[in-house]
């Protein structure tokens, strides 16, 4: 494999997470944080970044040690690595942004069981060299953060009439409180899934053989 091909492949692994294999809109992975902490844009962003940190570093480590970790104990080893980074994130958020840490609450610790992260280790990082694993992890993380931010922004705009705590409408706006309650998460995700599936279907029809 020559140099340009490697770069192409890295770019491909990176890009697939953003759109074609978006963890939320296409793979529908990691639904727990996707539904639970997307009631405001800032919470969504914080959760996305925390997940990004965990996924990128776990993938780096898993990929680096992939030849040393015996197959029989790989899942346990992955979980140890993931849990370590999650706990680090938990401490660091509590020390630097206590307000956001309080709002995200137990969902920080629950990143450990986000199947997106373990899924990437098992399906990708444990089988590919570090560079590709990094590209894949970054792509997936950004795709995940983007999806969370979409849901969070829609819910905050409709449910509180604000975005990133900045009021958007005048006093005349009556917030749709349901949007920041749990059902609002399901509604928003449902409509977004509908929209993205429609987009992809239209695209597939348009370019037929390429898809």
């Amino acid at each position, binding site marked *: 494999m020559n140099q340009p091909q490697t770069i192409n492949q890295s770019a491909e692994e990176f890009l697939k997470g953003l759109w074609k294999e978006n963890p939320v809109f296409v793979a529908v992975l990691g639904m727990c944080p996707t539904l639970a902490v997307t009631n405001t844009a800032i919470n969504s962003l914080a959760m996305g970044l925390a997940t990004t940190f965990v996924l990128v570093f776990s993938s780096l480590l898993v990929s680096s040690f992939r030849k040393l970790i015996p197959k029989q104990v790989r899942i346990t080893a992955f979980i140890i690595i993931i849990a370590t980074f999650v*706990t680090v994130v938990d401490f660091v958020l509590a020390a630097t942004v206590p307000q956001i840490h309080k709002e995200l609450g137990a969902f920080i610790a629950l990143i450990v069981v986000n199947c997106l992260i373990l899924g990437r280790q098992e399906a990708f990082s444990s089988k590919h060299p570090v560079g590709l694993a990094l590209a894949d992890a970054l792509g997936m993380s950004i795709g995940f953060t983007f999806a969370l931010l979409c849901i969070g922004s829609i819910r905050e705009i409709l449910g509180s009439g604000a975005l990133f705590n900045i009021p958007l409408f005048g006093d005349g706006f009556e917030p749709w409180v349901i949007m920041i309650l749990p059902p609002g998460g399901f509604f928003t995700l449902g409509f977004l899934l509908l929209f993205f599936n429609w987009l992809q279907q239209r695209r597939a029809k348009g370019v037929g053989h390429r898809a």
Partner: protein
Amino acid sequence: MSETRIEEQTLAAQPAPEAEPSSARLIATLGLAGFFSGLILVGVYLFTLPMIQAHRAQALERAIYLVLPGSTTYQALALKDGQLAPAEEVPAAKSGEEPRRIFAGYDDSGKLLGFAIPAEEPGFQDIIGGILGYDPIQKIIIGFEVLDSKETPGLGDKIMKDAAFQNNFKALAVDPQIVAVKKGEKRSPNEVEAITGATISSKAVVRLLQKAIEEWRPAIDAYEKTLNQ
């Protein structure tokens, strides 16, 4: 399944170098992973602990100054043989638990403004934690802040965000007792106007205040007397 394979492997004791790894190697891998994970966690914990504690102390301090308007210094107090004493002089309980503390707030001239009392009460979703400012001379509550709440966003969390509700605690009489009434029906100084749509959370706040006052009032009154002597 893999366990059975390992067992068979061990029994067969094949010396081939590419064979499946021995149990010892599996244990060593996980042991090493756990060891390094532990090292990292201890390091990060030790590094972040002072910052986390500073944030907590800061949040508490801010709340004390908020519920005792005008206060600039405070002293932590705890119960010692039923009497209030400076918290540093009160030994920790045998169980190792920190004694529960209240805070006396003073203004610049050293005048006692009142007492900040942290308290907890089950709300609609989870325990609501708050802190109230109590003026023992006028026997009124002069401030209240929610420190911890998981009440429903948009409804129950108005106990933290609703200005009208917060106004209930500017001068709330504690005698004969604090009661919750519907919005717009406040007639006497001991009544709290509940939030429409958040009755349970509002009533929880009232219970929290009432219980805190009942619990600490005798000790505060006794302490107040000794100060005036």
